[in-house]
């Protein structure tokens, strides 16, 4: 089973990288970009029997830093 974990900074946590990307987009002439926040997507290939609870634990114990980040788990249907 393929699983995608999206890790993003919590609202309110300043994102210097997002701000720099925002500036760069403006520099390229793209108007109307209000905000940019940079996150990370992690793709896992796990046994089909892997429980939701185990996936949550993986996120909380390692993949995300719960002090500053949120995560979202997306399971992809196997083809």
């Amino acid at each position, binding site marked *: 089973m393929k699983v995608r974990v999206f890790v993003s900074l919590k609202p309110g*946590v300043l994102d*210097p990288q997002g701000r*720099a990307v925002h500036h760069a987009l403006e520099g390229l002439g793209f108007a109307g970009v209000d905000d940019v926040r940079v996150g990370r997507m992690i793709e896992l290939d796990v046994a089909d029997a892997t429980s939701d609870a185990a996936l949550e634990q993986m996120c909380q*114990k390692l993949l995300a*830093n719960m*002090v*500053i980040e949120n995560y979202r788990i997306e399971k992809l249907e196997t083809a």
Partner: protein
Amino acid sequence: MAFRAAVVTFPGSNCDRDLAVALEKVSGTPALRVWHGDAELPERLDFIALPGGFSYGDYLRCGAMAARSPIVRAVIEAAHAGVPVLGICNGFQVLTESGLLPGALMRNAQLKFVCRTVPLTVENSQSLFTGAYEQGATIHLPVAHHDGNYFADEATLDRLEGEGRVAFRYGDAVNGSQRSIAGVLNAAGNVLGMMPHPERAIEPELGGSDGRTLFESAVKALVAA
């Protein structure tokens, strides 16, 4: 009485030797060297030091992989048992990632690697790591990091301030840290994490000796005890 200190080396650590040299110069006893894959620490340690560097290539997040390594599980146990633990730079990042210290160290606000000597204020001279400094003294230590921007939520910051757990504060704008925090203590006072490098300032030939006082504080507090 010999001062039994251990320095942990992770793959990618690069200040471990400097740290061992500083500990030996001040305590007179060679520091024990521990490898990240070891499951156990040497017995009867007086002091554990986590060095700067780029453990595990900073993969995922700075300090994240090291914080889950076998030896850090042993360090966490030792810290809970009261053994003093000092984490410098990447070692500080490992301590926040491991949960031994609150908060997180994010990318510097200006996005640049900062490498220079900075002024610091000693905010708490009562800890076992800082007892030989004057309260409120301005000292100078080198910093060298890309991710030293200390972040914690407001409630945590207020608690740290209220409990005297901010050990050092930057004297000028270095990396965007909340409330200019450069070093924090745990609630019990036996764990200190700091971004500046005291081990790089232990004698005038190195550009300053303000860092030596930190090791002298610890050796004095622990050997006398």
